[in-house]
Every structure is written in C-alpha cells, then in structure tokens.
C-alpha cells in the first residue's frame, strides 16, 4: 500500500500551507473530516480560507484556534445545538482574530464550486434575489432577474469517505452535499478514509468513485476520523459530544480548555480516540447494498 498513502500529519504539512483555501465538511452533517481539521490546528496553520455549505462545529473550532482568515460558507455553527461561539467572538470582537465572512446560501456555494469545476467565471441562479446577502458578498451580483455566483476554487478539498484505495479512488455513500463539486473544483483533493482497501474493491464499482484519481494527492487511513459526525455504515453521530462542545465553547477559557483536551493535548487521532469510547457509537446493524453487475463478456 504505497501509492498516495501518508499520515495525516504529512498530508497537512504538504498540502495545507498557511494561506490555503480549504474546502471541508462538504457533505454537511456527515463525513466531516474532524481529524484533518484538528491536525491543521496542531500544526498552527494560519490565514486559511474555509469553504463549505453548512458547517457543523469544525469551522467554529478552526476559527477559535486562530487558523482562519476568511469564511466562504452558507452557515457556521453547531447543527444540533445552535450558535457557533468562536464564530461569534471572531465576528463580534475579533477574538482571537478578525475574520472576513463571504456569506453564501447552500445553493450558491454549490454553484460557485460548479463554476470552478467547469472553469467559468460565474454561474447564474434564481436564488438570493431579494436577500441582503447580495450586499455583503461581492462574489454575488444581481443582474437582470438573476444572480451571478462567482467561481470559488479551493486549493484543496479534504474529504472523509467510507473507503478508498492507495491511489485515491474513493467511495462515499449517503447524502453527498457539495462533495463532488468541491473535489472537481479544487486544485487537489486529500482523502481521509475509514477503510483503506485494495483496488479490487474500488474498481469493482467505478460509478461510486467520487473523483478522478488524477486530482487526489494524498490518502490518509484515519478510522473514526470524522467523529463526532456520523459515517453511514460505521458511526452514529455523537450528539452528546456536540453538546459538550457547545457548552464549553461559550467562553474563551472554556474553548481553550476544550481545545487543549481534544486537540492540542493529543498527538494525533489515535491520542484523541484513546480518550473516548467510540464503541457506543459504532453501527452494528448491516444494510449492504445489492451489488451491480459490471460483467462485460
């Protein structure tokens, strides 16, 4: 298993330099690459632009840790709990730093990525008409009854999937949000996966492969790398963990203690998992898909 396989630390070191534009959490609530985000925090990355639709807590953590220069997203908070307290502090008091916000809707951020995937400057849409979001994001312009959504091209899309092979052929299932367009738009894709499998698995179903392997620069085998977000067939969502984060992140001190406990105070995902019992979240009941027959002769 050589190929593009590397550790999370190596992937972040190589492919998420300071100042990068990074798409994460592209499937909305499931498959959020928290392990990758936490490594970005540990490596003290700075001045990142984060691109996403609805972001469930991960963007809030990166903002609180001071990694973020700009948010280009439809929503930043905690889906089951409400507000993102670090996001609030950054926008309201510049704590720990000022950030720029480019508001989008879920639909418009998808179109911004499709524009980049097709290499056009913008795409038109009928959403956003009559919304004040048009006044705060100069990448959205109303023109004769439509809104032009400017292309957003991430330097890298970090995507957590159920399984991938060493060359980066990734299978993900369940709702995909804007995952496909994020990977096609980005200059490069980093895959983190629950299972690292052989190509006899991935190539058995080429329709399920998310991206052309030519876009994938790194494959990180990171089981439970999406915790506390859910992974179909592997893990349920850890609602309690989200609630604990929401409560503790209300104050800067509380957030910093949370960050020390779960991110800075551990070396890697293994260290994080050592402090946690994920077995209670593990999906035990199987629902295998009926195979498709790719027979050719």
């Amino acid at each position: 298993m050589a190929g593009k396989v590397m550790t999370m630390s190596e992937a972040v070191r190589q492919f998420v330099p300071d100042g990068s534009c990074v798409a994460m959490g592209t499937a909305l609530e499931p498959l959020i690459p928290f392990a990758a985000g936490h490594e970005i925090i540990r490596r003290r990355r700075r001045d990142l632009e984060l691109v996403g639709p609805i972001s469930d807590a991960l963007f809030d953590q990166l903002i609180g840790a001071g990694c973020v220069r700009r948010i280009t997203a439809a929503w930043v908070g905690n889906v089951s709990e409400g507000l993102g307290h670090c996001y609030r502090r950054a926008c309201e008091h510049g704590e720990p730093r000022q950030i720029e916000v480019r508001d989008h809707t879920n639909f418009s951020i998808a179109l911004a990525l499709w524009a980049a995937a097709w290499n056009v400057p913008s795409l038109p849409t009928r959403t956003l008409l009559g919304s004040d979001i048009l006044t705060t994001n100069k990448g959205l312009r109303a023109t004769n009854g439509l809104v032009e959504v400017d292309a957003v091209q991430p330097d890298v899309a970090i995507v957590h999937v159920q399984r991938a092979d060493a060359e980066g052929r990734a299978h993900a299932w369940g709702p995909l949000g804007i995952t496909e367009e994020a990977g096609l738009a980005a200059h490069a894709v980093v895959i983190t996966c629950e299972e690292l499998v052989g190509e006899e698995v991935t190539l058995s179903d080429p329709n399920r492969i998310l991206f052309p392997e030519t876009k994938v620069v790194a494959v990180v085998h990171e089981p439970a790398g999406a915790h506390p977000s859910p992974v179909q067939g592997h893990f349920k969502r850890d609602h309690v963990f989200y609630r604990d984060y929401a409560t503790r992140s209300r104050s800067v001190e509380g957030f910093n203690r949370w960050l020390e406990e779960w991110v800075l105070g551990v070396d890697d995902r293994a260290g994080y998992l050592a402090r946690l019992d994920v077995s209670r979240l593990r999906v035990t009941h199987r629902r295998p898909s009926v195979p498709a027959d790719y027979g050719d002769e």
Partner: protein
Amino acid sequence: MLYTPQEMMVAVASREIRDGDLVFVGMRLPILAYAVARNAHAPSARGLFEVGLMRDQPAGAFLGTMGDPPNVAGALWATRMSNVMGLMAQGRVDLGFIGGAEVDRFGNLNTSYIGTPQRPEVKLPGSGGGADIAILSRRWVTLMGHEKRRLVERVSFVTSPGYGDGTAGWRKRQGILGGGPAAVITTLCVLRFPPQGGEAFLASVHPGSTVDDVRSQTGWDLRVADDVSETSAPTESELAAIRRFDPEGFWTVTKA
C-alpha cells in the same frame, strides 16, 4: 394532556403539510413535523432534505441532524445538494420550513447579523438553505420562540426574504419565483399573511396565552384577525408521534 411549547409548534407545523406535498424539511423541529404529518393526515407527503435526500417516510430512529444514518436508510434518493435545490428552483417543492432568529412584520427572516455586518452585536450562523427555501419554494413556514426581541418591526438584515417592504408585488419585482411565507409559528401563537402577501396578522393563539400576551411580546403593533381563534392543542396521536420520534425530548423539551 400536558405538552411543551415545542410540541405545540411541531403539531401546528405538521398541520401545514398537505397530503402529497413535497416538503423541504429544515433542521430540528420540522424533521418532527414531517414525521407527525406523514403518520397522520399526509401519508403520501415526501420529504426533501438539502443534505441530498428524499424520503417517503420518517426515519426509523431519532435524528440529531438530517444527515444522521437513520435518515439515509430507506431513502428514495441520496444525491448532491445541487440536485435537490434544482428541483426546488423548478417549482417542485410545495412547502418549505425555515428556522428563524428574527422575523419582522412582513415575514422577512434574519439569520445572519444582528447589528451591522461589519461589526455585528450578534453573528448568527447564516442562511444555510434558508434563503434558497424562502425564494424558491412555493410556500414556506417558519418556527421560532416568541420573544419581543425576535419578532421585530423590521429585521436589520434580510437573509431570507418574506414580503420585503410589504408593498404589493414586492417579491415579483425582485424576480422571486416562490410564493413566500404562509405562517409564522411561535411558542405563543400562529401568524399568517394575506393571500397576496404583505403584513403578518395574528390568526390563532395557543391555549394558555391571550391576544394581549402575544401583542405585548411582539415588536410591532400586531394586527389581529377578526376571527382570531385558539390554536387547537396537540392531539393525543400527534403527541404520541412526536414522542416516538423524539423520545428523550431532545428537540421538544426546553433545555435548562
């Protein structure tokens, strides 16, 4: 029978769903409202979820988010968000639900900024799919706790447009396809709008509250319908359904 304000809101919201509707189901309480309606008067209602799902029945287990595994198992379609939004842009979504932080007398929602965007007093999470639903669904409903600071004369920032400045034809002048807000369901009452849109009025008051309570908790001089009524309380079967899908009161019991 005792019930919480959230259970009242879910029951009222579920009654907005008509049989056969394609419902764009938002975060939190609307997920329960769809489940309740589907199990009662709207057996053929389908749910569409922006995460990229279509369903014709509620998930088999509790959902903390629409992307939780039980919402995927048995789904009719698991796809990209842009495909789901495309259906709504084609006018195929009959009803949408949006959560609001602030609503004003013309049904405009603010989920972005309290105060100035440059230096807000409160930075709210943002639109998510809210603005998309407000602009592209045929009709929509919002749910929120009834507080004077949340039901305001005019929102400081229109994230999801209702009837704008309330003048006739405002939405059409913006080029908006969808029909606009049909109701604001709060912890105290139900506000509705004239058929052609415009200013919200008090349509019904939940049991235990009065018209005066509602008006005193509303940030503008709220109109009251001549035939203002009492909202019918959740039925036993509605409550049973709600409690089946939210057994621990995650959504329907106020947190301390």
